[in-house]
């Protein structure tokens, strides 16, 4: 079942190889789809479902631009097969704003100038959301360690740290 909130692809990805049926809940919307076995989760999100907020920045799980939450844990969706998401919940950047209300992390990134080109931002925010869920009041060092799997080339990280501190404070944690 596809949600109307998700843009339909004009030319669905042709499936040529062996396929498997998966049931996956993405941003609270359930999907039952057939996917090629080797389809990466990030390509399933981007090329099959047209959810292009999750980005691809490397081929080797280093840059973190593709970070999504899989059952609330941050994973790099370029190194997860779509079939591995079967029966599980995925949250992407498109699922952070709920009912017109931004997530405090989104507000923090905008308020503290935690982004320049915006390309690493979705992955960076997903990692931040997972960090704050586990540790609502992280120190600067804890923040830097938590986002060390997400590369940013533009900001020098200072304002990303501030953005996460801003979100922590807004969520009731923080100094």
């Amino acid at each position: 079942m596809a949600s109307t909130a998700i843009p339909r692809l004009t030319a669905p990805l042709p499936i040529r190889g062996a396929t498997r049926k998966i049931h996956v809940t993405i941003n609270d919307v359930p999907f039952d789809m057939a996917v090629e076995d080797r389809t990466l989760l990030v390509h399933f999100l981007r090329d099959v479902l047209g959810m292009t907020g999750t980005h691809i920045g490397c081929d080797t799980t280093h840059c973190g631009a593709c970070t999504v939450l899989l059952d609330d844990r941050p994973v790099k969706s370029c190194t997860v097969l779509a079939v591995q998401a079967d029966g599980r919940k995925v949250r992407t950047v498109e699922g952070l704003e709920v009912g017109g209300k931004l997530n405090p992390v989104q507000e923090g990134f905008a308020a503290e100038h935690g982004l320049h080109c915006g390309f690493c931002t979705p992955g960076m925010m997903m990692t931040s959301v997972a960090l704050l869920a586990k540790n609502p009041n992280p120190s600067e060092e804890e923040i830097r360690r938590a986002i060390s799997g997400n590369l940013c080339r533009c900001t020098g990280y200072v304002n990303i740290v501030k953005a996460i501190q801003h979100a922590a404070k807004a969520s009731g944690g923080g100094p």
Partner: protein
Amino acid sequence: MSIHGGIGQSLPRKEDARFIRGKGNYVDDIQLAGMLYLDFVRSPYAHAKITAIHSEEALKIPGVLAVITGKDLDAAKLAWMPTLMSDTQMVLPVDTVKFQGQEVAGVVAENRYAAADGAAAVQVDYDPLPVVTDPIKALQPDSPLVRPEKEKKSNHIWHWETGDRPGTDALLAKSDVVVHQDLYIPRINVSSIETCGCVATFDTMGRLTMYMTTQAPHAIRTVFALVSGLPEQSIRVISPDIGGGFGGKVPVYPGYVVAIVAALKTGHPVKWVETRMNNLMSSSFARDYHISADIGATKDGKLTALKVKTIADHGYADAAANPSKFPAGLFHIITGSYPFQKAFVEVDGVYTNKPPGGIAYRCSFRVTEAVFTIERLVDEIARKVGMDPADFRMKNFIPPEAFPYKSALGWTYDSGNYGGALKLAQQMIDYAGLRKEQAEKRKKGELMGIGISSFTEIVGAGPSAQFDILGLKMFDSAEIRIHPTGKVMARFGTKNQGQGHETTYAQILATELGIPAENISVEEGDTDTAPYGLGTYASRSTPTSGAAAAVAARRIRAKAQKIAAHLLEVSPDDLEWKDYKFQVKGVPEKSKTMADVAFAAYTNPAPGVEPGLEAIDYYDPPNMTYPFGSYICVVDIDKGTGQVHVRRFVAVDDCGTIINPMIVDGQIHGGLNMGLAPALYEQITYDEEGNIRGNSFLDYLVPTAVESPHWETGKTTTPSPHHPFGAKGVGESATVGAPAAIVNAIVDALSPYGVTHIDIPVYPWKVWQILHDHGVT
């Protein structure tokens, strides 16, 4: 009285609304009906003859539609293309590959996976040829020839020099103190987190729309027209949101051209997006300068002369992105912040079996190479003279009253107060206190170093008399349309890649037009709608298009004054522009806002005044701008491992008038990280057979948040006298200034062991080796 979102305010960024929601529109996000994917077969050899390309197996793979080779392109005279430096480079090879990772054949398929399968299934037969990867060896007469098809049977591409060679030699010979230093500034890759890519599509009328990651969409359109023969009005280049540029998205790469050919051949839209490994092995390379320098001073510490000889490794083609007149870019800013009496610089460009290099890495045309060299040398000569490096700089700086100042190599610096910036940096970091701490630590055998870099940049290219790319003069543009309801659409010839143009350009117009920034929309990157310009790189947007915005806005204001006079039934001379309104002099309650005027411009035109309220300006800057600053870095070195820890880093910048302090600080932070990166972590190397050593982020170490210091920033403001509102540009200052501060700090820490230089990147093993040799570890 201020205006909402005017110059000087930390206005939150307009563009963030889409980026924080995952609603950016980057090239790889574009999906068109029937779109195909392009991937490449790449060469495993750095130099080889291609004897055969076998596509049959690839074409059997379900979903693979076509294989495009150099021979196919050659039939259409498209196998070669010009570089931005009027050299030639291959789109696809007809018979020879010149670097490892070079595109050999394009494979077009229904989806990315089939395209990759197809590329893996193409069999290519090669006869390996001798390889040269060292530019010094490449200049020897027995070296393999990288470009034997050229008339000149040598790997030497060009020689460029400027300054007074005999005068410099004579003065150096007379100088009390001379320091000679060799420096290697390695090849690095800009590694914007978004790689390069495009979607090429033709409509039924044969019109090409090219969505591409380009920093210079108009220039690209003209180049495509000249190369392909397509009429220029039948080409539309759209540069959508760009995930970082840093110079890597200025050149034309083979992938773009093959995507166009594939779209033409298949009749479908074709997408090409580099993988990271593709990017790290074939595009976006900077630097690779082998420098040998001499600097002289009197015994009491006054600088005299500077002489620099450089071998520039360009890879197999000179595809650098420099202004045509300057094959070594603006390297002759190398006299820096100091009044040398004489200087001389020479650079020789050389071919090697590597991918083309010479793009900028967040820098204005070789300015980083220049600044790193002069700031390293100044430290070493200060040490030899026996002076503190801060005192030595203070003694030698070009004084504030000397501006505009003509440098020994011919640049006219617009404005500066170098001592002011260094003084502030010293105060912020407690320089005297640090020197005391260092003395105490040295007694205990601990390794602490303090490094300074007082850089002068040259940005904002540039005046048309000197600056062009492939003949296109380096002006830039702004077009302003004020709608009847007082809302503004403004378009520019530049192209944002994260710098915040949608916000800062609106701020300039808010101040100039008296219209709140929230009512001003900014657009760039679509050649069908934006006025012609040369694009964004070299910190040129604010100095050129930003200036054009002010000039065009002032033109609108002059017309608006006539309309306001008509509405107020007074003469235009009776009005003054005050508090962002036209007021009758002495009668401030009689006034009209720009919104009032805009409505009238369309509904009640003044007699004799053309209806409408629009203006366009193509700004040809009278001079470059010269941002500057002083950075101070403190490092602690682990004696056991050689690991360098940047404890503190204070950056004082002066970029003239500041439009948005929040964005300026953000640009400095990011630039500092791209100064840290080559100083300590990043380098692209090749073995003797031309194999790239490390082409993923596993080996190419882009700093994470853990290695990156908590940058501290400070500002002085010395406006540019020739820019309409005094701004200079800021995006690259920190990349340019930071490496020398870091390396100077490391050398300072190790100077008790007689260390005078360590080539970058300063890996822990290099430091450990020095400590080990001195019995410290």
